């Protein structure tokens, strides 16, 4: 009886919502609140924060040494991002090919393994790579050298290569699976060798996917802060420079100069990143690949079974040696710490572990809240974009919602700190939450918009002519068909928020509001913190993140069934 009355009351609520949804004013309110959320919380605060404080830049003009260090760091950001994206593309494309085209069971295994660096929190990933390549603990001890690749440019290159690699593989596998092989077959029946067919037909058709993956890799490299700080040593790019600047005391840099430098580097990074991305997005599609000339003999050799096996072996070697093994290397010191009995101290309510657990609570709390708010306010925005509810404005919105992922997160954090900082009554937690909302907003909206776009408009039209009101159409047609994308988008937002370091560091005014990644970066940079504590801290973070993601995935998969 109770169940029946409950279901009846749910039915009444749904009926009420259904009636509301057909009310024009309610629809307007829903869309307006979503637009207000985007502009007032996501897009404008960081932009206004920077613009309002642009006059601070005057203070740095005479600080030539710091200024040239800042300029060099900005330049290094772009050099690193371009270099990593090109290398990643060259290395990841053959592996994506192997995964998409190979019929062997190994390909399925590789397909799963390739996601490991993507699923790992970047702070843990950074520490793992540092230990593997640089620390006496890792490969260096095996080879009997002090530090095989010391912290600096090359180690950052390796780190960025590793965390962008799965992104490119994932995008390109998707593109290859969607690609209709019939074009390639047609080229081959016309006499083209496999390699020639791929070069002259497949690759030009995959160009949009190649550009997307290049841009994603560029964005990640330009934005990543926490792990980069761990492995950068004395080398600096934009985010590392900002991180180091925030760390500097009043004695090292007076606050007025510090603010000026923060505004200068952040505004430069924000403006140049947006400019570079829009330029690439506009110009890259016009670049023609060199497809006119054909080299039958050379391309015939490159299409041979031997050449293909060599290419696949090389791709797998890169995957394991440079990506997978260094990423999971952290497991060794972590288990060593556990076996050494360090786990007990980790649960001590005193000392450094107290800060650790508080950081974890803040991280999970902020990430969950950011995910929920982005879902609630991002969903109507995804509908506005996917169903072009505002005509041309929807197209513009589709472009500008990408800005938060283009902009380096620490620069975004600095501008948010400047924006919210002027309101004394705004609690610090809000600034922290707002930075996480801003950084992750695009992930949910873009993935949901794409999912809704993939549902034919006709299904909605037919449902509507059959008498279903807008809320019913959403609940009974759109939601069941996009549910998995919605949950995937939410998981993506949560994962990204949990791993965010740069913005979290920029907005945290005191240690009380350090998120777990920020705390870990500080531990790892601190030579006085024992390696067992660092490894255990990073390990617990990694394991908790895995467990949480696994639980969410199982929950949603169960729901999907």
């Amino acid at each position, binding site marked *: 009886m109770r169940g029946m009355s409950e279901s009846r009351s749910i039915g009444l609520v749904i009926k009420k919502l259904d009636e509301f949804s057909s009310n024009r004013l309610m629809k307007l309110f829903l869309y307006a609140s979503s637009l207000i959320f985007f502009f007032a919380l996501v897009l404008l605060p960081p932009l206004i924060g920077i613009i309002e404080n642009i006059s601070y830049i005057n203070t740095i003009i005479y600080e030539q040494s710091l200024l040239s260090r800042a300029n060099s760091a900005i330049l290094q950001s772009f050099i690193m991002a371009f270099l990593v994206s090109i290398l990643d593309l060259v290395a990841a494309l053959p592996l994506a090919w192997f995964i998409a085209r190979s019929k062997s069971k190994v390909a399925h295994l590789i397909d799963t393994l390739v996601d490991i660096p993507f699923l790992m929190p970047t702070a843990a990933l950074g520490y793992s790579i540092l230990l593997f390549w640089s620390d006496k603990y890792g490969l260096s001890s095996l080879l009997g050298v002090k530090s095989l690749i010391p912290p600096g440019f090359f180690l950052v290159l390796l780190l960025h290569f590793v965390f962008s690699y799965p992104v490119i593989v994932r995008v390109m596998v998707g593109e290859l699976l969607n690609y209709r092989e019939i074009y390639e077959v047609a080229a081959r029946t016309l006499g083209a060798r496999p390699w020639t067919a791929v070069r002259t037909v497949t690759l030009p058709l995959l160009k949009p996917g190649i550009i997307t993956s290049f841009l994603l890799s560029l964005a990640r490299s330009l934005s990543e802060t926490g792990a980069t700080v761990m492995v950068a040593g004395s080398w600096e790019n934009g985010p590392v420079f900002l991180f180091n600047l925030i760390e500097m005391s009043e004695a090292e840099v007076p606050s007025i100069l510090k603010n000026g430098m923060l505004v200068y580097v952040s505004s430069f990074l924000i403006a140049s990143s947006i400019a570079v991305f829009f330029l690439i997005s506009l110009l890259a599609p016009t670049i023609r690949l060199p497809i006119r000339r054909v080299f039958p003999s050379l391309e015939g050799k490159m299409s041979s079974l031997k050449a293909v096996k060599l290419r696949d072996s090389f791709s797998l070697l890169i995957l394991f040696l440079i990506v997978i093994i260094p990423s999971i290397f952290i497991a060794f010191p972590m288990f060593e710490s556990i076996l050494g009995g360090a786990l007990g101290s980790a649960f001590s309510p005193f000392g450094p572990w107290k800060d650790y657990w508080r950081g974890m609570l803040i991280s999970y709390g902020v990430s969950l809240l950011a995910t929920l708010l982005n879902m609630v306010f991002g969903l109507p925005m995804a509908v506005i974009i996917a169903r072009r509810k505002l005509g041309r404005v929807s197209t513009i919105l589709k472009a500008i919602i990408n800005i938060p992922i283009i902009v380096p997160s620490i620069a975004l954090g600095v501008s948010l700190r400047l924006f919210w900082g002027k309101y004394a009554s705004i609690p610090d937690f809000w600034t922290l939450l707002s930075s996480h909302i801003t950084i992750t907003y695009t992930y949910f909206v873009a993935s949901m918009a794409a999912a809704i776009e993939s549902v034919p408009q006709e299904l909605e*039209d*037919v*449902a*509507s*002519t*059959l*008498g279903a009101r807008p809320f019913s159409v959403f609940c009974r*047609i759109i939601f069941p068909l996009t549910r998995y994308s919605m949950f995937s988008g939410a998981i993506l937002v949560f994962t990204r928020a949990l791993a965010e370091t740069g913005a979290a560091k920029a907005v945290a005014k005191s240690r009380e509001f350090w998120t777990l990644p920020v705390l870990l970066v500080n531990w790892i940079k601190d030579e006085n913190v024992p390696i067992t504590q660092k490894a255990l801290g990073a390990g617990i973070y990694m394991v908790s993140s895995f467990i949480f993601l696994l639980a969410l995935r199982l929950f949603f998969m169960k729901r999907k069934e």
Partner: protein
Amino acid sequence: MPTIKLVNVTKKYGNITAIKNLSLTIEDGEYLCILGPTGSGKTTLLKLVAGIVKPDKGEIYIDDKLVNNMPAYERNVAYLPQYYALFPHLTVLENVAFGPLSKGLSVEEARRISMQMLEMTRLAWRANSFPHELSGGMQQRLALARALASGAKILLLDEPLGALDARLRVELRYKLRKLAKENNLTTIHVTHDQEEAMIVADRIVVLRNGEIQQVGSPLEVYNDPKNIFVAHFIGGANFFEGFVADVDRYGSWIQLRNNFLLRINDPNRSVGERVIVMVREEKSKILKAKKKREEINVFPGTIVNTSFLGDFISYTISLDNGDKANSKVPLAKAIGKFKVGERVYLYIEPEDVKVYPYPPHGLYKEIEVI
């Protein structure tokens, strides 16, 4: 049974005008076919009636009620898009029950009605299947069952047979009409297949570039096409260019290319008027050279091609004046009678000729369908 009335309706998509100042009334229980080439505005017209798109100008009435601002879910119409838009995540039964449930019926009642509709469309045994598990014909029947279960009295069909193979298309078009008539539905059926329209429609509307070219019964539209486009779009036709050479009490003489003279039964022409004459292919008779008996409207030529059309054979004749004509001859009369390269005569009865003023942009522009 509702009446649908469109008054001066215009619909634009950006700079493209899909429907131009269109007025049309569809009577209670009528089965109306909208016929037209791709991009003529057929689907837009259906969507306007369904309430999926709103007109920029003009009024739409259903049962004398202005429905311009009435949302689709309140119009009580059932819209079937070309590929049916069956909900892929719902079973056959759930698809059919979607409409009744959306209209507030209880689960039991929705189930009863849905099963009734599935029985009628002979799909009850597949109630628990998913749409992708059904054949093309079954999917079409499911879409119909879903539409009927919603209780709608207006059925809007967008190329309902377009996704089916030729055999099934022929079979189902009769059933479609029968079902609509039995359920007293006012039906608008969009198609680009003129044969299909001829068979199922009470009336046909020929649409081009968003404008109505002609409305009438299939016979009227076929036998008395109002303009060159309709004549060309519906049924096979031969067109000849010429001018009026003479007019007398009983008719006129049209001078075709190279002084070929064609007699027509229309005395209301002006001498010197530039015209296009049209003769249906089956009315363009082909005669053996030695059997020529008629004195007028007999034009010599050579057969240059033959095409087998099933019940007919079509002969292409290159006339001695440079024009070309097709003649459709019933198979029984044609077997072994004519061959390519044979000298023949094309004979046209004066009463079978339709005359149109020469179009300002020429014949080919006038009959263009893209």
